[in-house]
């Protein structure tokens, strides 16, 4: 399970769910999905998988991720923070 002791409870929860989605779609072990990992450079996730991850993230957290926001999601932290902002 992905844990990061320095994260606040809400970020921890979002990261855990996001890691599950990434494991399902990109077949990267959830434990490897850490806040500082970059989607393309570190996790080798392609653009189509990113769209799938975004779609499942939208469904999981019941929010909208507009296509233009997708281009700004470079790291796992960007995605966690986006979900956090959208939920606020």
């Amino acid at each position: 399970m992905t844990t990061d002791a320095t994260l606040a409870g809400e970020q921890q929860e979002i990261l855990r769910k996001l890691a599950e989605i990434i494991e399902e779609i990109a077949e990267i072990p959830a434990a490897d999905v850490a806040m500082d990992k970059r989607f393309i450079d570190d996790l080798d996730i392609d653009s189509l998988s990113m769209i799938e991850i975004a779609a499942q993230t939208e469904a999981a957290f019941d929010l909208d991720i507009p296509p233009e926001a997708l281009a700004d999601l470079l790291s796992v932290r960007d995605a966690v923070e986006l979900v956090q902002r959208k939920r606020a």
Partner: protein
Amino acid sequence: MSNNDVVVTGLGATTPLGGDVWSTWEAMLAGRSGGRQLDPELVEKFRLPVRIAAPLAVEPASVLPRGAVRRLDRCQQVAVVAAQQAWEEAKAQDHVDPDRVGVVVGTGIGGIRTLLEQADLLTGKGLRQMSPLTVPMLMPNGPAAQVGLALGARAGVHAPVSACASGAEALVWAWRMLRAGEADIVVAGGAEASLTGVTMAAFARTRTLSLRNDDPRRASRPFDADRDGFVLGEGAGMVVLERAEHAAARGAKVYARLAGVGTSADAHHITAPDPTGRGQATAIRASMRCARVTPADVGHVNAHATSTVVGDIPETVAIKEAIGDHPVLTAPKGALGHLLGAAGSTEAISTVLSLHHGLLPPTANLEKLDPQVEMDVVAGEPRKTDAAVAVCDSFGFGGHNVALTFVKE
């Protein structure tokens, strides 16, 4: 045999009779049928008049990685399963430059399961629930593209679409690629997985499906006097083709030679075959001429015979017209059901194995030969043959006719 001849060096299949070529072939020799009751939930939901089909014997999800199962439509899954079997058997990967590997995979319908599932999601739950993979999963070139990706093939990936002749047409284009020097080795065949409510209902509306609902194993009965339509099946059949000199240079096992190919079009009717058999005879003649064999050389014909009332007889007229009444016929659809876009290539494999083993599988369920056939049809038991030449023909809605002439090696 000349160096430019095209030979078969690998076989792969997943069918209603088995998850590979060998289990399928054994079941065909035993005269077993893949016909089964259709999922009762599907029948109930769409109130289908046809309640039988020939589903896969082995689920592709049980042999593919989880990621592939999620990202590939079922027709693409079966294509990859069969192609990988054929490719592994040919043992070519260490002997060929990926830039010289081609893929030709046809389908009759393509990713219809994805299309229907995503249409339901869009209607019921909205855009957000739709998969971003919808387009690559439903496109009819998807099975070819996924096989190309799986094998790393870069010489060209093509997807002929000619309904029930698609799988056979794939072998034609592969042969042409090899003869034109566009590739050194080509994986070719057809794939289909369209056992959906819409497909079943649509074929039922064309009145081409068997209604022998209480006896699915005996429903597909090509050339039988009591035939009443085909049984819709799913699956994939793939072959590896290469030029003889290429196969010899790498010491490949050769099953048979694809000596000639022939195609034509009926220009008669969008679904019904020309009753005179003219277009079909043209394709058969063209494939024999291409193979430099005479009608007298042909020992057996692997018939397309789908078990429909209107289809089976024009085919015998065409065979008699092009070859004569001397070849022995066998019709695999009694056992396999109708694999649509995968039928031609899966039956080409049966033709190749018949020559290779000198054994013709019986036409399953043929009990009372339609008197209009007036030809010798293998039934009941497999029959030995020492013939060196066989023709495999395939026809599709749209009037597409394909004939392949194989020669024993």
